[in-house]
C-alpha cells in the first residue's frame, strides 16, 4: 500500500510537469510494467480530473477542425483537381532533366545497411519527382533530395535547395523533411521548403494542411497554418512568421519567375540558379534595390533587358570562352550602375 502511494505522488507531479528524476523513473517503470492495472488506474484518475467542454485554445481548435475537414472534405473531388493541376504544370514546363543517382552505402552491420537515392535537379532545370510512398513534388534548380530506398517505414528525406512537396497521407505515418537547420514534419499536405546551403535563410511556405517545424535540437518550434511563411535565420537562430499567399511561392513549379519587391541581389541569385549563369553585381547600392516583376518562359537576355529598363542598372554578358583545359565554363554576367 505504501508503494502505491509513492507511485501516486510521482504520477501527480509528473502529470503536472514538476517532477524529479525518481518521479520520472517510477512513472516509466509503471508504463513498462507487464500489468496495466495500476497504470490504467492512475491514468484514469487524471482523465477524470480533466474537464471536457468547448475547446478554448485557438490553435488546438484549428487543429481539431483540420481533422474534421479531413474526414468531411469540403471539396468533393480533390483527386480530380490535383490531376488537373499536374496536367497544367506538365504542359507549361520544359522537359525536366532527371538525374537519378543511387548510392549504395555498404555498411557492415546488415540491419543498418540503408541504400539511399538522390534526385538532383541541375542548375537551370526544374525536376518533378515521385517518392516510393506516392508523394510527389518539384525540385527547383540546383537542389538535391536524398531519401532511403526502403522508404515506407520511416518517411524521411533530406533537402538541400528548394522543393515543393505534395505529401501523400498515410495513416499515422509522418513524413519528415530535414534541412541543415530545421526539420519539417507532416502527415499529408502541400508545402514549399527553401534551404539553399549558401543562404542563411530557410523558408517554409504552407499551401494546405498543417506542418510542424522542429528546430535543430529536434524540439517542436512551431505548428504552421496554411498561407503562412516561416523564415528561419540560421545565423541568428531566429524565426519570423508571416502571412502570405502560398500559391505565389509555388509558381516556380509552373515555370513562372516572380519577384515581389525582392532585393536585386536576391533576384540575381535566383536568376543565376534558374539559368545556370554566374552573375556579379559590382555595386553595393544596386544590390539593395527592390524589384517587382513576373516572367514566364522568358530568355535570360530578355529578362535582363527588362530589369535594366526599370532599374538604374546596366549589364554586360561576357563571351563564353574555353578555359586553359579547353572546357567551356558558365556564362558570366556583370551588373553595374548606369
Amino acid at each position, binding site marked *: 500500500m505504501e508503494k502505491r502511494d509513492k507511485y501516486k505522488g510521482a504520477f501527480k507531479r*509528473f*502529470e*503536472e*510537469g514538476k*517532477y*524529479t*528524476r*525518481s*518521479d*520520472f*523513473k517510477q*512513472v*516509466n517503470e509503471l*508504463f*513498462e510494467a507487464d500489468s*496495466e492495472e495500476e*497504470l*490504467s488506474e492512475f*491514468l*484514469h484518475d*487524471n*482523465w477524470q480530473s*480533466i*474537464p*471536457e*467542454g*468547448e*475547446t*478554448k*485554445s485557438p*490553435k*488546438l*481548435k484549428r*487543429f*481539431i*477542425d483540420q*481533422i*474534421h475537414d479531413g*474526414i*468531411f472534405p469540403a471539396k468533393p473531388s480533390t483527386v480530380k483537381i490535383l490531376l488537373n493541376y499536374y496536367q497544367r504544370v506538365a504542359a507549361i514546363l520544359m522537359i525536366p532533366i532527371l538525374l537519378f543517382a543511387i548510392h549504395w552505402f555498404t*555498411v*557492415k*552491420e546488415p540491419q543498418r545497411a540503408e541504400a539511399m537515392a538522390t534526385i538532383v535537379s541541375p542548375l537551370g532545370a526544374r525536376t518533378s519527382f515521385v517518392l516510393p510512398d506516392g508523394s510527389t513534388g518539384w525540385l527547383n534548380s540546383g537542389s538535391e533530395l536524398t531519401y532511403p530506398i526502403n522508404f515506407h517505414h520511416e518517411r524521411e528525406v533530406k533537402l538541400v535547395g528548394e522543393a515543393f512537396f505534395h505529401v501523400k497521407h498515410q*495513416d*499515422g505515418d*509522418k513524413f519528415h523533411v530535414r534541412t541543415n537547420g530545421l526539420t519539417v*514534419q507532416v*502527415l499529408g499536405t502541400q508545402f514549399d521548403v527553401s534551404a539553399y546551403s549558401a543562404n542563411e535563410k530557410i523558408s517554409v511556405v504552407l499551401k494546405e494542411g498543417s506542418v*510542424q517545424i522542429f*528546430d*535543430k*535540437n*529536434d*524540439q*517542436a*518550434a512551431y*505548428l504552421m497554418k496554411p498561407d503562412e511563411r516561416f523564415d528561419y535565420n540560421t545565423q541568428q*537562430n*531566429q*524565426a519570423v512568421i508571416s502571412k502570405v499567399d502560398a500559391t505565389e511561392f509555388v509558381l516556380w513549379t509552373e515555370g513562372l519567375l516572380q519577384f515581389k519587391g525582392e532585393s536585386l541581389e536576391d533576384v540575381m541569385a535566383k536568376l543565376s540558379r534558374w539559368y545556370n549563369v554566374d552573375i556579379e553585381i559590382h555595386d553595393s547600392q544596386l544590390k539593395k534595390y527592390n524589384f517587382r516583376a513576373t516572367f514566364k518562359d522568358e530568355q535570360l537576355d530578355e529578362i535582363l533587358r527588362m530589369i535594366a529598363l526599370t532599374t538604374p542598372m546596366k549589364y554586360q554578358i561576357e563571351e563564353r570562352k574555353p578555359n586553359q583545359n579547353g572546357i567551356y565554363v558558365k556564362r558570366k554576367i556583370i551588373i553595374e550602375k548606369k
Partner: protein
Amino acid sequence: MDQPFNVEQLRRGDSRAFKQFFQYYGEKVFAFAFSYLKNETDAQEIVQEVFLKVWKNRQNLKVNTSLQAYLFTITFNAVKKTFLRRSKEQAFKHSLVDELDSETDVQDFENQYQLVIAKLELFIEEMPERRRQIFIARKKEGKPVKQIAEEMDISVKTIENQITEAMKYLKNRFGTELPEGLNLLVLFLDYDH
C-alpha cells in the same frame, strides 16, 4: 451529462455532430496526452489518432458512460504506445544522467528533471560534429567501440579519447553554464492551451 452532440447522429456519420464531439473532447484528450508525453506534436497526434478511430468505429458507439469509457480506453492505449516508443528513444539520455551524476557533484540532477534533460540535449548538440557522431554511436546506438572504429576508419584509441572528452565536456557544461541558444525554444513554448 449535458453533451452537445447526439450519439445517434455520430453513428450515422453526421458532419456537424462530429464537429461538436471533437470540440467537446479535443482539449481533454490533448491535455491528457500532453501530461505524459510533454510534447505538443505528440499530443496532437494522439488527438488525431483517437478521433480517427472514433470515426472509423462510429457504427459501434453507445450512449453516455460507455462512450466516455471507450474514449478513455483508446486514448490510454495510444498514449501508452507513444510513451513507450519515446521512452525507448530517450533511454540513453537517462542513463547518461545517471552516469554523470555518479561522477560529478556540481549539479543537482534530481530536481527539475525536465530541464536537466533539455540541457543535456543542448550540450550534446554543441559538441563538434565528429565527436558527437562517435558519442551518439556509442551511447545512443550502443555500438561496440571496435565496430565504430571500423565504420569510421579510425583507431580504437581515438574513439575512446573522443568519448572521454565528450563526457568531460558534459560534466563541465552542467557544472558551469546556463543553456544558451534557447531562443527559438522559448519563443514558441507559449502554447496557448
